[in-house]
Structure formats: C-alpha cells, structure tokens
C-alpha cells in the first residue's frame, strides 16, 4: 500500500473507533452506567482524526469537554477512558474526572476542560515551556466556535502571537454553541478572518473531509515546528447529536441535521476510497470487528472495575510530597 493509502486506512479506522466508542457511551448513559454530563463528537470525528494524524507522539493536546475522541486518538486506552466515565479507580483519573475531564500524562493529553475557553491559556503555557526549553514540540488546542467569543480566546491567541509560540489553535466550528447559532454569537462569522486579525496564519478547511483536515493540519504543524509561530485552523463541521444528553434541540431543524448527515465524514471517506478501488467491504468489516472487540472490552473492563476507596477521597488535593500533606497528619495529632 502507498503511504497515502496507509494513512487513509488509519484515518478511516480511527474515525470508526471514535464513532463506535461514543455510540456505546450513549447507550451506557441511558443505562445509567455513565452519569453527569456527556457530550459526544458524533459527526465531527474528521476534525480530531485529521489533526492528530499530523502530530508527533510528544506533541501535546488541550481539548474540551467533548474530548473522548481526542483522548482515544492521542493514544489513551479505551479501557482507561471508559472506566473513567464509569467513575472507576481504573479510569485515567481514578474516577475523579469523568467524561469532561480525561487526562493522561503519558500521552501528553492535558484534558478535558469543562470551562469554555479555559484550556487556551494552558496551551499557550505548555508551548512557552517548550520554547524556553528549546524543544520542538507542538501544542494543539481544540475549542468550539462558541469559545471564540470568550475573552480567553482573545488574550491567549494574542499572547501566543506576540511571543511566537508553537501552538496550533483548532476551532471545531460545528455552527452551534449549545443552542446559539454562530451568527448570534459572533459579529464576524468568518472565523479565519478573526484569527488573522492577530497576525496569525489562519486557514479554513472542510471539517467533514478528513483528508483535507489531515493535509492542512500537516502544513500548519510543519510550519509551527519550523518556528513559524502560532497557526489557526477552522474546521467546518457539524454535531449530529444533541449538545449533551439533556438537550431537547429546539434551536435547529431536523432537516438541517439530516442535510449534514449526508456529509458524514466516515461514509464520505469510505465512499471515496471504495470508488478509488483502495477499500473493500471486507476491509471495513475487519475494522468494525477489531473495534467492536476494543469497545466491548472497554465496557466490560469498566463494568468489572472497582471503585476508588472512599477513604482516599482527599488524595490528590495536594501532592503527596507537599508539606501540606506531610504536616496534615501531624496537625491532627496536635489537635486531638
């Protein structure tokens, strides 16, 4: 297989993995195994899949509360992610974070932030540390178009630009922020134009076309790694499902959703590869069954995993080696 074909195969397989994993999450939410807020990425998989394909393992990711896919794509195990959503001690955050707060130090996945826009400053800081340490790593920050109205977007991209830091800002423009359509939240709806006003190279790409996303992201990441400073990428995509499990979806027409489903990123790539004669149904079936095993295994693992001991509730408020913790026990002694 050519390099392109290998990449295409991987992109297809990764998108299907994210899709099937989240479909299972929705089932498990209805079953009560997953609680709290659950935001799925179904329909938007091409964005994270394409961008991640352009990264090195040591590059860093900062994402949002809609980040299950990003976590899996960065290399976190389906088991640790699913167990986290079940609130188990075997989860990536030992059950403390849940769906909105997935983290993984090993793969440099920095969350998992449930404050809209809250992750952008952190991404700038991670890039600053790389720059000051002479490392050529890239930090990629994902956020929605709604987040661009927050002051944190403005302050963060300006800071990254003033200091020429290696950050790729990826706006997942799915046209809605909960129920708020882009035109009602931004006076300038061409988001690349907004970003360009910070003197940052900005591109817009079809977020339903994973090949386009991958190619554009690769160009941006290369430019950043070469010292080109921060870049901005707007991926135009769409959320097929409700914002969260509580969203009655009063704010958009069913027809709009159906129209976008015509551009399902997985089906689109599959059709193109099939037309190009580089993909057989058997290939997809193989992927599906490999993925089914992963998802079943993750669910079974989560289901059978134990909970954190309640006695450990206060673990990780401070570091074990912080004197706040070391002295705490002592303080008790003195007190009682």
């Amino acid at each position, binding site marked *: 297989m050519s390099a392109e074909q290998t990449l295409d195969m991987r992109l297809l397989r990764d998108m299907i993995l994210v899709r099937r994993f989240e479909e299972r999450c929705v089932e498990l939410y209805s079953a009560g195994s997953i609680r709290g807020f659950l935001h799925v990425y179904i329909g938007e998989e091409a964005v994270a899949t394409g961008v991640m394909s352009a990264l090195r393992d040591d590059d860093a990711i900062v994402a949002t509360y809609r980040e299950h896919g990003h976590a899996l794509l960065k290399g976190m195990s389906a088991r640790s992610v699913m167990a986290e959503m079940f*609130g188990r001690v075997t989860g990536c955050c030992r*059950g403390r974070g849940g769906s909105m707060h997935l983290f993984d130090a090993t793969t440099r996945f920095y969350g998992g932030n449930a404050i809209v826009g809250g992750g952008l400053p952190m991404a700038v800081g991670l890039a600053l540390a790389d720059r000051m340490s002479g490392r050529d790593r890239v930090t990629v920050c994902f956020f929605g178009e709604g987040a661009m109205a927050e002051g944190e977007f403005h302050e963060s991209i300006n800071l990254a630009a003033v200091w020429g830091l290696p950050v790729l800002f990826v706006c997942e423009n799915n046209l809605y922020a909960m129920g708020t359509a882009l035109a009602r*939240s931004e006076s300038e709806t061409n988001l690349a134009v907004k970003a360009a006003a910070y003197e940052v190279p900005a591109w817009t790409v079809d977020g339903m076309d994973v090949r386009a996303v991958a190619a554009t992201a690769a160009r941006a990441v290369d430019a950043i790694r070469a010292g080109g400073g921060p870049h901005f990428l707007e991926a135009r995509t769409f959320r097929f499902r409700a914002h969260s499990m509580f969203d009655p979806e009063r704010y958009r027409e069913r027809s709009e959703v159906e129209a976008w489903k015509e551009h399902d990123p997985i089906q689109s790539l599959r059709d193109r590869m099939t037309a190009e004669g580089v993909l057989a149904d058997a290939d997809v079936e193989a992927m599906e069954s490999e993925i089914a095993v992963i998802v079943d295994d993750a669910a079974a693992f989560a289901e059978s995993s134990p909970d954190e001991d309640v006695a450990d509730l206060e673990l990780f408020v401070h570091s074990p080696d912080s004197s706040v913790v070391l002295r705490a026990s002592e303080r008790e002694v003195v007190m009682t």
Partner: protein
Amino acid sequence: MTAAKLEPSTPAQPPEAEPGTTTITYREAIREAMREAMLADDRVFLMGEDVGMYGGCFGVSTGLLEQFGPDRVRDTPLSESAFVGAGIGAALGGMRPIVEVMTVNFSLLALDQIMNTAAALQHMSGGQFQVPIVIRMTTGAGRQLAAQHSHSLEGWYGHIPGIRIVAPATLADARGMLATALADPDPVLFFEHGSLYNMSGELGPDVGPVDIDRAAIRRPGADVTLITYGGTLATTMEAAEVLAGEGVDAEVIDLRTLRPLDDATIIGSVLRTHRAVVIDEGWRSGSLSAEISARITEKAFYELDAPVGRVCSAEVPMPYARHLELAALPSVPEIVDAAQRSMRGEV
C-alpha cells in the same frame, strides 16, 4: 437520603393542598416569577447564554422567548464578563435586567464586574448611581458534574459588601423572591441549587413577593438549632426528622438571604436552644458556616451549652464518581451526628 440529596423529594414546606393551589416545580416557580415580572414591568428583561432558543440550560426560561420575543429574552455569546457588565450598564440606563449566568462556576469569569463595579459603584460614586440588577445562577453539586461544575460559592460571595445574596430553598421562595429582588435598588445575586429544579409541590393562589430580609424557621424545635440554606435545607429537614426519632427536637433555620445575614432570627433561636450546628454545602474553610459560627460566638457565647458545630463539604475539588461525591457532601447521618454531639456538648 442519597436520593433526597440528589433530588429532594420532600418539599421544604408542608404540602397540604388548599383550594386554589396548584402543583408546581421549583423550575416552574422561577419561570412564572420571571414571566410575571416581565409582564408587570417593561424595564425587566432576561439575558444570558441560551436563555432563549435553547430554552435555558436547565429549562428555567423555556417558553419566555416565544412570549416576550428576542429583545427581552436575549441570548448572549459566551462572554460572561461582558454580558454581566452589560447588565450593570443596562441597569444604570434605567432597565431592570435579570442576567442569567448559567452556573456559578462560570461566574468567576464575571467576578471583576460583580465585585469591582456592581458592588462598588454606588459607594465610589458617592451615592449617585444605583445598580438594580438581579444575577441568577445555578449553584451546587450532587449531579456528578465534577470539579468545574459543582461549586457552591454563594456563601463565599457573601464576603462582598454592596450586594445582596438570596438562595431560595422552597417553592414559595422560588416563586416569590425574584419580585422582591427586582424591587431592590441594589445588585442581588440569586442562587438556584441545581438539585432543586425538579422539586415539586403545592403553591397557594396568593403567590407574590416575599420578604427577603428575614430567615425562616422551617421547623420549630427546642433542643438544637440547625442553620442552613438552599440545597441542604431538604437534607437538614430530613435529619431533623431522624433526630426527632432519637428524641432530639431540632429547630431548622433556612437563612434565605446569605448577605446580609439575619442575625436576629439566628441568635434568637440559639438563645432558646443554646446549641447550634451550621450545615453548608460550601467547602468548610472560609465558608459561610464560619461566619455564622463566629457571629453566634460573638453574640451568644455565654448562652451556648456546646461549641457551634459545622457540617460542610469536604475540602476537595468535587470528584465525578458518585460514591466520592456523596462522601464529599453533607449527609443526613453527618448532620444527625453533629447535632447529637452538640447535645453532648461536643463538636
């Protein structure tokens, strides 16, 4: 008890149905209060994230956009600092804005506007400008929303001079406090505990503005005073029942207004029971419970038969896992234990 904490079943007030009463939820009570206020006064309008097209993040404002139109039910961009500040400006411009900050967790982004402008403007201007704004927020934990979506900061906000803070814990208050808050010439922060929205019960026909200067004694008792507010009132009422079974007659005070505190009602009760336990969903250190404990000591020290007790949340960013979250929050057994220790003169 667990269920009760997550979704209080017992309304915090007697539910006997009288003629003319209607069954209503806490969510609907606030919605009706907003509807009534907007019908009564053209200057009143609602603005915030997703209050309109979406119907309100927690469904509180559902239907208001259709009734009042986009001019008076304004969806805002994700810009907490700007739209809270714009509410302040609109108030200065003669309007009576109700600004919904989706949850208290996001209000930190608007805290500069609240503390440095809304709360300070009248004093800084030598009394020239008043800021009649009502800022509504959902607060509290109990729904497995984890560390960034589970803060209970309403008591902490009580440190700021120049604002009033209310926390309706009953259907009558949910229905009646907004009108009173809107009538206040100064900024009012209005906290709705997320676990109360589905609480339902009967409301009489004579709904209307309620006094917000006085705390309420939700359960009279002679042995110990349990002081709480908002989301923990139902838990505390439940604990009082358990205590009754154990022969302890607890009085339960619902603060209702967290700033300024109604010392008269609090101290008045303690002077009768000589014992007090404060139940506060906030993190223990520096929570409102500390201020209440300090005031009781200052004003009734020699009347106390036991140190003032406190039942608060564990000092941890709220964990997602249900069993850990429940362990972190005030519970009926903890309240009962604290009250029993108080009966024994312990803390």
